[in-house]
């Protein structure tokens, strides 16, 4: 039943059946239990997936890929803008200057290269205003990380109303850039704005945004793809070209996408920063129980070390953080109050932006509810409880579901059979309720024929005995 609505949720993570070996590593790590194994392949339940990318990290054969737009798409536009997040420069060795990176991005075909964090100072002021004006909704949750926004929608629906309804820095910078270029007389349809993304969640935020109709960004380029292209250009260069680096960003802006980047700059009350999706889940459970008191603002990021740990970042996340912090110190002022940065490119009272940065409501779409009808849900809950009680609680995943509890739920939702449990099979066999052929057929239907091929252990079989 769940599957029917699956295609309405766009995901940047794709599972390549031809490469998947059905090892179930992804199923076991998925924080929203969005993956099952069937016929020897990982299957994604699209309505449960939040694009956090944990599965991508653990896949041993690279069968999980991150979709991206064809790079040639940039040539559909005369004016081609690359929006580069500050973590990008942190991917390169110290010997590569930001000027070199910048000129290489130009060389690839972009007419304008702009850092995503230019919108940060403007947005920080708006956040502080928002927190002051929305004291009743405490704790307010940053909308920065799209995986967290989606996690709240599916797993913590009661907290959906706590999300700050303002766009992310990348959208602010994109809006401002487009406005600036059209003000110069360039037609809006000739401007293509491309975002270089550190993760899958940000792709989904562009392709199927929450709280807005359509994104202001025209396309995405995966960070590891751009990294490779630029590295090649830098390698082939004989002499170092003398170009000026990125525009002056405040220290605050440079570190905005790192852990504590936002939380350190909220002037109202008490702020907390939490990174890594399992930490976020643990904390949100407590927030939902009202066990946590007195927090005004929550910065929540799905990746360890926030965007420096994005799945598309080729560099080591700890090294990236160090490089960005050093760059922030160099920029002179980590609090970001230098005159240049305050007056920066974006005016604090930019009326066009003020009008365009609010988001529509973030609607809950619970994966937790068992049924829309409450008495049906109660019947299902009782059955799940009863089933789960007889299962071994080993959470071995042999049934193709991540836990015994998940199998109980799948059975009750008509998406699995209790006979998929290997322990249940053994019990049935002892009672002559199942023969070996049937149990082998069931195992084959979960793990594929070749994993249970009778002839596959031919040489070893005598030794084993």
């Amino acid at each position, binding site marked *: 039943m769940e599957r029917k609505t699956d295609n309405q949720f766009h995901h940047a993570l794709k599972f390549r059946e031809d490469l998947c070996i059905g090892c179930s590593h992804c199923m076991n790590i998925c924080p929203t239990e969005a993956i099952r194994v069937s016929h020897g392949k990982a299957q994604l339940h699209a309505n449960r997936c939040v694009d956090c990318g944990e599965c991508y990290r653990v896949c041993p054969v690279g069968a999980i890929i991150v979709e991206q737009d064809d790079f040639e798409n940039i040539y559909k536009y005369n004016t081609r803008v690359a929006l580069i997040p500050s973590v990008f420069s942190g991917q390169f060795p110290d010997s590569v200057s930001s000027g070199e990176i910048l000129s290489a991005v130009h060389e690839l075909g972009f007419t304008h290269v702009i850092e995503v964090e230019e919108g940060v100072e403007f947005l920080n002021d708006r956040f502080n205003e928002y927190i002051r004006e929305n004291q009743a909704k405490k704790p307010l949750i940053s909308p920065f990380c799209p995986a967290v926004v989606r996690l709240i929608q599916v797993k913590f629906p*009661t907290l959906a109303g706590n999300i700050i309804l303002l766009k992310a820095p990348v959208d602010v910078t994109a809006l401002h850039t487009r406005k600036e270029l059209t003000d110069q007389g360039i037609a809006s349809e000739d401007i293509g704005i491309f975002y270089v993304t550190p993760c899958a969640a940000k792709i989904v935020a562009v392709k199927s945004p929450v709280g807005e109709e359509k994104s202001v960004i025209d396309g995405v380029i995966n960070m590891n793809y751009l990294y490779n292209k630029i590295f090649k250009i830098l390698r082939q260069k004989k002499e170092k070209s003398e170009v000026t680096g990125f525009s002056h960003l405040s220290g605050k802006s440079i570190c905005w996408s790192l852990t504590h980047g936002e939380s350190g700059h909220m002037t109202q009350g008490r702020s907390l920063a939490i990174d890594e999706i399992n930490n976020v889940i643990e904390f949100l459970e407590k927030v939902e129980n*009202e066990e946590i008191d007195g927090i005004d603002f929550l910065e929540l990021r799905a990746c360890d070390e926030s965007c420096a740990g994005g799945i598309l970042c080729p560099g080591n996340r700890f090294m990236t953080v160090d490089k960005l912090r050093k760059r922030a110190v160099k920029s002179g002022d980590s609090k970001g109050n230098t005159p240049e940065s305050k007056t920066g490119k974006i005016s604090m009272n930019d009326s066009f932006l003020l009008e365009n940065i609010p988001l529509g409501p973030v609607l809950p779409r619970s994966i937790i509810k068992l049924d829309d009808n*409450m008495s049906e*849900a109660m019947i299902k809950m009782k059955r799940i409880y009863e089933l789960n009680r007889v299962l071994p609680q080993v959470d071995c995943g042999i049934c193709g579901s991540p836990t015994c509890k998940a199998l109980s739920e799948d059975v009750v939702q008509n998406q699995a059979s209790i006979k998929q449990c290997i322990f249940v099979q053994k019990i049935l066999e002892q009672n002559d309720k199942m023969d070996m052929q049937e149990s082998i057929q069931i195992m084959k239907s979960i793990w594929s024929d070749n994993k249970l091929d009778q002839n596959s252990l031919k040489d070893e079989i005598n030794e084993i005995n």
Partner: protein
Amino acid sequence: MSSEKMHFEYRVEGGNFSEAGYPSSQVKKTLKQLNVEGNVIKRTVVALYEAEVNIVAHAYRGVIAVDIDTEKIIITLTDEGPGIADIKKAMEIGYSTATPEVREMGFGAGMGLSNMNTNADKLSITSEVGTGTIVEIMNYFHK
């Protein structure tokens, strides 16, 4: 109307603040699975947590019984403890008999009973000094 019903119970140990919150967390999970409206879940969980902390702070031990049907949730907290001499007074905001140790842990500010009252559709408290207290919280799912 369907007559589906559910019942479960939790035991609470006096003085064990570090474990407080488990029943409210379980009740929250259940109500989420039953597709109960978010605001009702919030209010129920707040009222239950306050009531549970009261047992932990004041009583020796207690039992929390949860009864759910398609209309409402009834939570009955029965404790063995000192009881409340003046319930009306205990309901006043800021009134507290919590020990300094309990206050030091961030509890016992005298908001518990009034907080429970605002988050419950029906709240009844009966108590016998020297024996214990029974708190009944009722919240409706549909209004």
